[in-house]
């Protein structure tokens, strides 16, 4: 049988927001683009995003601008963010949102007919462009339709709609191929038939999303298996700060089958309050010192804020996610949680039923159909769920080029640096657009200067053998049970609260599972066989988990999405350190690398007293890098 081969200028792996935006950019510059995704087109994780996309358009409060957004982002990330990424993101996201509108998106409107914006945790002003609570769907559908528009244009010009941009849906990439140190293409298989495919291209954009499925309780779908993280590692790229995982404070906790499914932060943005089983609104107890001047310490002020934001501090329910998740965790541990291990989140006393149904339609629907709870009348039960990985491929901020691998680019959740130690809600959707576009541009620039390197037969053979291997083994390990074991390890030992000894135990256990996974055998044929699909995903998740556990073990402080029981509190020395993971073919190695210092013009955007909370006196004295 002959191998299916395709040649393109740019290969985009992933059809979420980041991948699609990159593909549009590359195609509009005249290159031929392939978009590859594991599920059907339009089903990527991005469709699940609910709350909105952060962009300082200032439509609702005109005090907002990119500098405020930049400050919020850095604060949220506890100043571990790559300053340049945060800067680009804050500056460019309004344009990216407006661009979507030109492509046909229909955001909710203000009275003046502009795009409406809503409040979200960690954002000083109402900043999230949204459509009810299905913003991700709007984003992805708009870009899907934009791609159709480009295809129709190509169709008019060449007679073939798929001549310039083609979607390969339900195709899993198992290897990124290199020749002479440069990208040459990618290898994968059709999920439907199990047959293999070779893509030859000088540039590859990885936009594969997150890693949630490494954990037991997660808001992510089966696709969140960290494929891109692992593919990049194996291709010689680095991952940065993999210890930082965002546990979203509000996932569903009951019934068990929906455990982890997200309850959007907009519920709190619209006035939802968190209470424990004593009926206490406990978040007031958990306002950390660095946020004391921004958050209300009494109910009266918090309630007034919804009416008058200029003269009141915001309610503590809207603290950054890491704070809220830890608070809920502590409440439950202290025995003030519900019988299912959650706390109560209630909007029913805040808003009339019709308003809830209008502003939070899919939440109403989700609770009504899946949990039998009518959120217009009763509180929801919620608890933390693994939601987002801040860590990811180390990239050049301006081009999204992966450090160390010419021709490789990464954008979206799979890329690291932008969000530091904790991502603000709504900053991901805008991140996808800003850096998706930049990755597309980066790839275009690269392809203009570099010609394609043909893929060698040896590389093809090696990739093909890897796919065949699990079918040739007899009576080996079952991928479903290994996956469950891994999730148990990460959940118990690398979860929200970590300690050194447990992390070491986790590292050993992950290594052991990894050894056994080399012996996974698959029953049945190649045709749409989920057991076979999981065998590859498992391998990726193991690498990601190893990288996370090792980075977490190395970081001896608590910051954002990384909390150490044995090292509570932030340590300003650690703020200067990024953890870089690399792969030597056997295991993941983690080393420290110093964070690039902020240039003066960004440094000066902050109040020095605020910076003193995060930086060492020497850094503050220096006042930025130039």
């Amino acid at each position, binding site marked *: 049988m002959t191998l299916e081969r395709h040649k393109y200028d740019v290969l985009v792996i992933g059809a979420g927001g980041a991948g699609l935006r990159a593909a549009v950019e590359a195609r509009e510059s005249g290159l031929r683009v392939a978009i590859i995704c594991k599920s059907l087109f339009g089903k990527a994780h991005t469709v699940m995003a609910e709350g909105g996309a952060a962009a300082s358009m200032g439509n609702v409060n005109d005090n907002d601008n990119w500098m405020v957004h930049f400050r919020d982002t850095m604060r949220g990330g506890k100043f571990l963010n790559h300053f340049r990424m945060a800067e680009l993101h804050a500056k460019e996201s309004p344009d990216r949102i407006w661009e979507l509108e030109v492509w046909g998106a229909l955001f909710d409107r203000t009275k003046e007919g502009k795009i409406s914006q809503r409040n979200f945790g960690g954002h000083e002003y109402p900043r999230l462009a949204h459509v*009810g609570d299905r913003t991700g769907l709007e984003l992805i559908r708009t870009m899907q339709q934009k791609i159709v528009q480009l295809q129709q244009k190509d169709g008019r010009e060449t007679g073939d709609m798929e001549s310039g941009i083609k979607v390969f849906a339900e195709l899993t990439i198992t290897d990124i191929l290199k020749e002479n140190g440069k990208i040459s293409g990618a290898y994968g298989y059709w999920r*439907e038939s199990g047959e293999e495919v070779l893509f030859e291209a000088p540039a590859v954009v990885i936009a594969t999303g997150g890693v949630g499925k490494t954990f037991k309780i997660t808001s992510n779908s089966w696709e969140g298996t960290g494929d891109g993280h692992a593919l990049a590692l194996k291709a010689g790229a680095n991952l940065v700060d993999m210890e930082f995982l965002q546990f979203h404070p509000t996932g569903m906790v009951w019934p*068990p089958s929906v455990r982890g499914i997200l309850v959007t932060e907009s519920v709190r943005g619209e006035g939802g309050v968190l209470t424990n089983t004593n009926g206490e609104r406990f978040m007031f107890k958990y306002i950390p010192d660095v946020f004391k001047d921004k958050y209300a310490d009494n109910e009266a002020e918090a309630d007034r804020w919804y009416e008058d934001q200029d003269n009141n501090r915001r309610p503590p329910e809207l603290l950054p996610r890491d704070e809220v998740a830890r608070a809920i965790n502590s409440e439950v541990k202290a025995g003030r949680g519900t019988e299912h291990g959650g706390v109560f989140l209630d909007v029913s006393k805040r808003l009339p039923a019709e308003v809830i149904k209008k502003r939070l339609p899919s939440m109403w629907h989700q609770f009504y159909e899946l949990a039998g709870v009518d959120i217009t009348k009763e509180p929801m039960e919620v608890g933390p769920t693994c939601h987002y990985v801040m860590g990811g491929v180390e990239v050049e901020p301006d081009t999204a080029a992966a450090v160390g691998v010419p021709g490789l680019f990464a954008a979206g959740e799979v890329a690291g640096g932008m969000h530091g130690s904790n991502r603000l809600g709504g900053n991901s959707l805008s991140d996808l657009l800003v850096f998706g576009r930049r990755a597309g541009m980066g790839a275009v620039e690269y392809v203009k200067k570099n010609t394609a390197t043909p893929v060698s037969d040896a590389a093809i053979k090696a990739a093909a053998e890897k796919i065949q291997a699990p079918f040739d083994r007899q009576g080996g390990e079952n991928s479903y049970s290994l996956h469950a074991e891994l999730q148990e390890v990460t959940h118990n030992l690398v979860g929200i609260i970590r300690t050194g000894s447990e992390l070491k135990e986790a590292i050993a256990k992950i290594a052991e599972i990894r050894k056994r996974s080399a012996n996974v055998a698959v029953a049945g044929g190649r045709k749409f066989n989920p057991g076979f699909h999981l065998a590859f995903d498992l391998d990726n998740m193991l690498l990601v988990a190893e990288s996370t556990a090792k980075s977490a073990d190395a970081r001896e402080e608590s910051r954002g999405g990384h909390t150490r029981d044995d090292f509570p509190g932030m340590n300003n020395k650690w703020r200067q350190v990024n953890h870089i993971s690399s792969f030597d073919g056997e295991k993941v190695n983690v080393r420290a690398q110093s964070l690039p210092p902020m240039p003066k013009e960004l440094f000066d955007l902050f109040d020095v007293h605020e910076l003193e909370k995060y930086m060492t006196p020497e850094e503050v004295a220096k006042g930025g890098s130039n």
Partner: protein
Amino acid sequence: MARSIKLRIWRGDSTDGGLKDVVVEANEGEVVLDVIHRVQATQMGDLAVRWNCKAGKCGSCSMEINGKPRLACMTQVASFGEEETITVTPLRAFPIIKDLVTDVSFNYKKAMEIPAYEPPAELAPGEARMEQIDVERSQEFRKCIECFLCQDVCHVVRDHEENKKSFAGPRFLMRMAELDFHPLDQRKTRKQEAQEQHGLGFCNITKCCTEVCPEHIKITDNALIPMKERVADVKYDPVRWLGSKIRKREGL
């Protein structure tokens, strides 16, 4: 609280196939997709099924449960009787691939045929002004999660393979309505195209699409019928037709 339930799952591919009986545990609060996953993990490792979000947001897990097109992740096991056998089959309007997975490329092909949104030529990013009441009608249709249940249930193609070439199906006729209602869309010929090229006339407004839509979009009442009325305006209403000619002549 776990109990055993009886499931009949269609297994097979394009060459052959049939319903297979299995007995599987179900816990309180579980949906059909959960028990299918349990069957997959414990009894049929290679059972093919599509899913993603498990929260009714992505439209991947479309199948037919007791003969009705539904999302498996939004169908509670408890909604069936204790003794009832739950029969699960793939969508019956599309070509079968394997087990519960069908080839839905028909829908993506149709999506590519609908003329794209045409914004005003001079509209600069950030300058668009639209009133909420003007976008609401189209917003309802944009809730669509592309589960294709409506496309599956619509008898025009479900029962008549040969109509597939000339009928876009409810989801995409609704997309045409969405664009025709869009306050800034400039294309003037959508009504004619809906009728002449995308088969709006095939729809006999029997509302099965509306009945199965998991997003509860009123496809027939809010998209298809209004579109039929708009088509009538431009094609079958001599008075309006005359009126539009006269207005054009007078340059109004």
